[in-house]
């Protein structure tokens, strides 16, 4: 059943390719995309169940064994994130079909599939250079989506996102060179095994490589000094694509940060206090940015930064020694990540509905939605209060877990920042509520002044919103199953031995005759490799 691990890559690749072939036939293209998205959800569910029962699943591409071949590894965290990305692909795809009346521009759906391909690849790969490649795949798709779906502003946002993200990628690339020069391997599991010895010999070089990777991932995750690509670009595409970005782009950076400090660079704990400080600043500055904006999508984009800070704070809290607190911190990371990847896209989708119903997302021009659209108002309120962390919604448990981990590890500054940011999140959400829903529509602004295309809101627009809101509500009222899943994923992340064992000792399918010519021992890599695994 090993081929199943390749399915999260093959399915979106196939649907992107077939979708491009159906360029002139929008209905066929939509059917292909939907089939691919549904298939992906099925694959992800099976993978989650398999990993939950049978432990980490790996696939050595081409049958070459671990440190030589390219490893795909799915542990509990990866499986959970694959499920998340596939559900979001389906939701955003449906919403997109509704938004464009089942006739999106022909490139959009294949590009969304390519984005999912890159995201899934990044979640599964067990190789540092391969991670770089998947980053580039998803970034290029995201730039193209921005440029194609956002009009004038989309082009502008794409240029900004591209330049800043490319600088991050260059950091990544140079760091990969340094890591290979130090270790002679780029396999994450292999790096974990060797890093302690290398760190003892070359502490400065190891810390330099770790910080460069940290900067690259922090940029993708939109942490404090390097988040400026996000508010310049997140809000410009169509709401369905905003939702996809909000669900997945920063999450890939956060996932990579978490892996970085637990697997290949577990020795680089000295960087964590700096990361923790930056996350506290990120929380506060993101929400301050949100407070000063008066357009719904921009407010939501700034909130993404703030929430990213909360998630990354859990990674920074790995600096504590107490294994219970570490487990709690990583559990908080996983739970918060899932919560945010459901709530934020729901809010972006609702902002699209507000635009359709109210004529726009500028708060100064909007108003009067509550008496006119009670269901829409209730949907917004549910998602907004969950984002702000009010009980009994999913955001409450997510924030509680982060705050508890911060308190248990004695990080009172972080605790204060998190509480302040939470309060201001509520304030800025109330601002949207007051302006768009509560206050009467400003005089002279009659109904839907700038409703662009058909303003119909069909089930394809409501369906994904309701699906995400239902998940948020279930996660809020019954958090325990999701918390348990998150805890198991966190335990897997914090136990690199199991990951290493699964990657390095997983025999490539012997029936296929894995290549036997192991020339690598004579290739004189800079550092001698330790003994190979025994068959």
């Amino acid at each position, binding site marked *: 059943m090993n081929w199943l691990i390749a399915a999260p890559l093959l399915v979106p690749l196939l649907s992107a390719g077939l979708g491009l072939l159906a360029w002139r036939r929008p209905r066929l293209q939509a059917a292909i995309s939907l089939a691919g998205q549904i298939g992906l959800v099925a694959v992800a569910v099976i993978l989650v169940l398999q990993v939950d029962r049978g432990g980490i699943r790996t696939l050595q591409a081409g049958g070459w064994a671990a440190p030589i071949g390219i490893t795909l590894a799915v542990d509990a965290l990866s499986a959970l994130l694959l499920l998340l990305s596939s559900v979001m692909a389906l939701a955003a795809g449906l919403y997109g079909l509704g938004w464009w009346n089942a006739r999106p521009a022909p490139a959009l759906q294949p590009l969304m599939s390519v984005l999912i391909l890159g995201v899934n690849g990044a979640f599964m790969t067990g190789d540092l250079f391969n991670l770089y*490649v998947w980053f580039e795949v998803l970034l290029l798709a995201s730039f193209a989506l921005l440029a194609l779906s956002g009009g004038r502003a989309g082009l*502008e946002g794409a240029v900004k996102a591209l330049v800043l993200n490319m600088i991050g990628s260059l950091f990544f690339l140079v760091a990969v060179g340094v890591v290979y020069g130090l270790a002679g391997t780029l396999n994450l599991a292999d790096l974990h095994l060797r890093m302690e010895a290398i760190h003892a010999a070359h502490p400065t070089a190891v810390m330099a490589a770790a910080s460069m990777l940290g900067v690259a991932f922090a940029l993708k995750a939109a942490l404090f000094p390097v988040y400026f690509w996000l*508010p310049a670009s997140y809000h410009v595409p169509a709401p369905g694509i905003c939702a996809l970005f909000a669900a997945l782009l920063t999450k890939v950076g956060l996932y990579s940060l978490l892996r970085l400090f637990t697997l290949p660079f577990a020795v680089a704990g000295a960087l964590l206090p700096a990361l923790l400080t930056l996350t506290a600043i990120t929380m506060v500055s993101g929400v301050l940015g949100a407070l000063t904006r008066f357009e719904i999508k921009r407010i939501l984009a700034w909130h993404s930064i703030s929430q990213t800070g909360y998630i990354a704070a859990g990674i920074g809290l790995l600096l504590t020694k107490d294994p219970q607190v570490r487990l709690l911190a990583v559990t908080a990371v996983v739970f918060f990540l899932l919560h945010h990847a459901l709530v934020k896209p729901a809010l972006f989708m609702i902002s699209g509905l507000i635009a359709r119903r109210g004529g726009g997302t500028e708060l100064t021009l909007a108003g009067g939605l509550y008496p006119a659209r009670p269901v829409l108002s209730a949907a917004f309120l549910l998602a907004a209060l969950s984002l702000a962390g009010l009980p009994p919604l999913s955001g409450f448990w997510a924030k509680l877990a982060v705050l508890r981990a911060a308190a248990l590890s004695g990080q009172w500054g972080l605790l204060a920042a998190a509480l302040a940011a939470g309060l201001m999140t509520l304030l800025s959400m109330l601002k949207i509520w007051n302006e768009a829903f509560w206050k009467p529509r400003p005089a002279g602004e009659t109904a839907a002044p700038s409703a662009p295309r058909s303003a119909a809101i069909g089930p394809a627009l409501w369906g994904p919103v309701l699906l995400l809101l239902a998940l948020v509500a279930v996660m809020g009222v019954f958090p325990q199953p999701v918390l348990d899943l998150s805890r198991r994923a966190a335990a897997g992340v914090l136990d690199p031995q199991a990951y290493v064992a699964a990657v390095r000792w997983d025999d490539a399918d012997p029936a296929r005759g894995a290549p036997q010519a192991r020339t690598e021992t004579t290739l*004189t890599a800079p550092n001698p490799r330790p003994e190979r695994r025994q068959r």
Partner: protein
Amino acid sequence: MIVWLALIAGLLFAAGLHQLQQRSLPRILIGLLLLSNAANLALFTASAPLREVPPLAAVGESAPPAGAADPLPQALVLTAIVIGFAVLAFTGALLLRTRDVLAEEDTDLIRETDA
């Protein structure tokens, strides 16, 4: 040799960053081009000692001669060059289109999406 390569990489980084800061869309492309090459050179230089023996096994041998170059960094840098080329081609198209649509080249004046 390695010192020279390192110096050249550093010079390319400096020139690329300088170009990026010139507030002009076409110069952004030039800057990214230089930076991308700088990163590729740094990747190649940092990842393995330079050796001039190709890693090819002679007929009948199962391993290349001792002291052969490590082929993996070469594969890495080739991949990185290809990816960089694709990204830069896209960047060129995007910048050209942006300049046409916005009718503006000065990046300081392109700030609609910021505020």
